[in-house]
C-alpha cells in the first residue's frame, strides 16, 4: 500500500516534470507542424521529384511512366543555357537596380533625417504608398504607362520628336522592369534606413559639431557607417527578391514580345511546370534557384561582414 502510493506519487511528479519540460514544445508545435508540412516538405519534395523523369514509350501506345533517373534533371538544368541566361539577366538586373534603389533609399532617408527638411510626413507617406500596391497591380499599371497606345509618358516623348522611344523594346524592357521594382521598394527600404538613422543617439552629432564637422561629414562618417547593417539587410532581401522576379515579366509579356517564357528563372520554372508540363524539370529548376539564392545571399553577408570587420 505504502509502496504503491509512493510510486504513484513519484510517477505524478515525473509526469508533472515532463509536462513542464514539454510546455515550450507545445507552444511551438502549431507553427512547427505547419512549417514542416508547408515549408520543409516542399523543399524535400522538390529535390525528390527532381530525381525522376517521365518516360514515354516509343510508339506512344502505353501511358507515360515516371522513372527514377538520379541527378539527370539537376544535371540538365545545371547545363541549361536558358536557365543561365535567365539567371545572368537577373544578376545584371540586380547589379544595376539594387545599388540604385538602395542609394536612393539612403539618400531620401538622410534627407528626411535632416532638420532642414519640412513636410516629412507627406514625403514619407508618398514614398511608402507603392509598397501597399500588390506587385502584379503595380506591373499592370506601369504596363499601361509603358504601352504606346495608352501612355502619357510615351506620348510626350513622341510629341517632342523622339519617335523611336519605346519602353518595351528588347533592350529597354529589362530596365523598364527595374523601374517597376525600384518604384515599389525604394520607399520600403527608405523607411528601414530612416528608422536606423532615428535610432542613432543625438549626442554623437553634437560631439561632431563641436569638433567642427559639417552636415556632409556627419552623414559620411557617422550616419552611413551606423546604418550600414540596415543597408546590408535591405540588400540581402533585395537580392533574394531579384532572383525571384515573376510578377513584372509575367504581366509585361502580355503587351510585348521582348519577354520570352524563360526571361527570369521563376518564369522559366513556371513555364516548365504549367505550360510544357515538365513538373520534374521544374522541380529541378526550383532546387537550383534556391541553391543560387543561398549562394548569393551568403556571399553578400560574407563580403559585407569582412568589410565591416565584424
Amino acid at each position, binding site marked *: 500500500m505504502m509502496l504503491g502510493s509512493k510510486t504513484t506519487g513519484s510517477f505524478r511528479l515525473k509526469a508533472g516534470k515532463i509536462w513542464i519540460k514539454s510546455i515550450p*514544445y507545445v507552444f511551438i508545435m502549431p507553427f512547427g507542424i505547419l*512549417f514542416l508540412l508547408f515549408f520543409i516538405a516542399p523543399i524535400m519534395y522538390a529535390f525528390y521529384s527532381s530525381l525522376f523523369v517521365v518516360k514515354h514509350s516509343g510508339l506512344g501506345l502505353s501511358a507515360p511512366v515516371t522513372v527514377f533517373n538520379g541527378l539527370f534533371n539537376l544535371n540538365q538544368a545545371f547545363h541549361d543555357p536558358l536557365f543561365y541566361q535567365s539567371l545572368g539577366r537577373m544578376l545584371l538586373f540586380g547589379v544595376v537596380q539594387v545599388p540604385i534603389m538602395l542609394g536612393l533609399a539612403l539618400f531620401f532617408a538622410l534627407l528626411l533625417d535632416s532638420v532642414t527638411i519640412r513636410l516629412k510626413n507627406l514625403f*514619407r507617406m508618398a514614398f511608402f504608398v507603392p509598397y*501597399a500596391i500588390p506587385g502584379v497591380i503595380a506591373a499592370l499599371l506601369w504596363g499601361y504607362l509603358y504601352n504606346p497606345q495608352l501612355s502619357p509618358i510615351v506620348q510626350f516623348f513622341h510629341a517632342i520628336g523622339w519617335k523611336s522611344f519605346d519602353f518595351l523594346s528588347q533592350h529597354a524592357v529589362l530596365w523598364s522592369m527595374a523601374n517597376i521594382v525600384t518604384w515599389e521598394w525604394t520607399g520600403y527600404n527608405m523607411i528601414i534606413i530612416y528608422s536606423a538613422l532615428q535610432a542613432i543617439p543625438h549626442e554623437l552629432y553634437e560631439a561632431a559639431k563641436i569638433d567642427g564637422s559639417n552636415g556632409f561629414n556627419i552623414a559620411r562618417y557617422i550616419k552611413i557607417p551606423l546604418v550600414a547593417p540596415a543597408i546590408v539587410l535591405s540588400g540581402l532581401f533585395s537580392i533574394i527578391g531579384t532572383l525571384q522576379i515573376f510578377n513584372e515579366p509575367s504581366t509585361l509579356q*502580355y503587351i510585348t514580345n521582348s519577354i520570352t517564357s524563360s526571361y527570369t528563372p521563376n518564369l522559366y520554372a513556371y513555364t516548365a511546370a504549367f505550360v510544357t508540363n515538365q513538373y520534374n524539370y521544374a522541380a529541378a529548376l526550383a532546387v537550383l534557384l534556391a541553391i543560387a539564392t543561398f549562394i548569393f545571399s551568403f556571399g553578400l553577408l560574407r563580403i559585407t561582414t569582412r568589410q565591416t570587420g565584424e
Partner: protein
Amino acid sequence: MGNIFTSVLRKTISPEEPMKPSKRTGGTNVLGMAVLFAFTVYFLLPLYWLIISSTKTTNDLFSGNGLWFSGQFQFFQNLQGLFSYDGGIFISWFINTFLYAIGSAVISTLIAAMAGYALAKFKFYGKNTIFSIVLGSLLVPTTALSLPLYLLMAKAGLTNTYWAVLLPSFVSPFGVYLARVYSVSSIPDEMLDAARVDGAGEFRVFFRIALAALTPSLITIFLFQFVAVWNNYFLPLVMLSNQNLFPLTVGLQSWNAITTSVSGQGMLYSYIIMGSLISVLPLIIGFLFLQRYWRAGIVSGSIK
C-alpha cells in the same frame, strides 16, 4: 552566419524606442525639398493616372490627354460595369482576397506569437537550432516553394480549394522572428512569475498575460501577413484554376490576359483599371490609419 544575420536584423528591427529631441534649427534645404517633391511626383504618378483613367470610357483611354479628365465622366458607369461583369465575379474576388488575407493573418499571428513566446521565455533543448532554422528560412525564396507545394497539394487533392492558399500562408517565419524579439523586450519575466505563483497554468499565463503585453506588436505582425497575402500572386496563381476562388491579383491578371490577346481587343481595359483602383484602396487607407504600427514593425519606430 546566423549570428551575423540576427545581429543585422536586430539592429534594424529592434522594438526599443529611443526618444530623441527634435530640434528645428537652420533654414529650409530648398534643393533637398525640390528633389523630394520631384520624387513624390514619380511615386504618385501611377496612382494619379489610375484615378484619372477610372473616370474614362475605354475609347477615351486611347485618345486625348492621359493625364487629365476626358469630356465624359464615366466613373460610376465603370464601377457598375465592373461589379456586374461576368455575374459579378469581381465581388467574389474581392471577398476571396479578404478571406485569404484575414484568415492567414489571424492564424499565422497567433501561432507565430506562441512560437516566438516559447523561443523568448523558455529554456529548452533544441531552442537555438529551431531559431536558426526559422532565421535561415527567411532566406529561402518563397516562390521556389510554391511549385513543389503545388505538386504536394495536388497529391492531397487540395489544389483548387481555399485551403491551398490558406494553409501555406499560415506559416510566417518572419512573424515568429518578430514575436520572439517583441517577447524578449515587452514581456517582463516578473510578470509571468507572479502569475505562476498565483497558480495560473502556462496556457492561462500565455493567453491572459503574455498576449496582452504583446498586443501592439501582434497588430504589426498581423499587418505584415495581411499585406503579404493580399498582395500575393504566385501562390494562388499556381494553386487555383477555378476563377470563383481567385483573389484580386490573379483575377485582374486573367482579365489582362484576355484583354491584350488578339481576340480581346481591349474590351476590359476600363474594368481592369477600375478593379485595380478598388483593390489598392483598402491597403492605402489602412496604411494612412495604421501608420504607427508599420513603423513599429519595420523599424525601431522613433518617428513622432
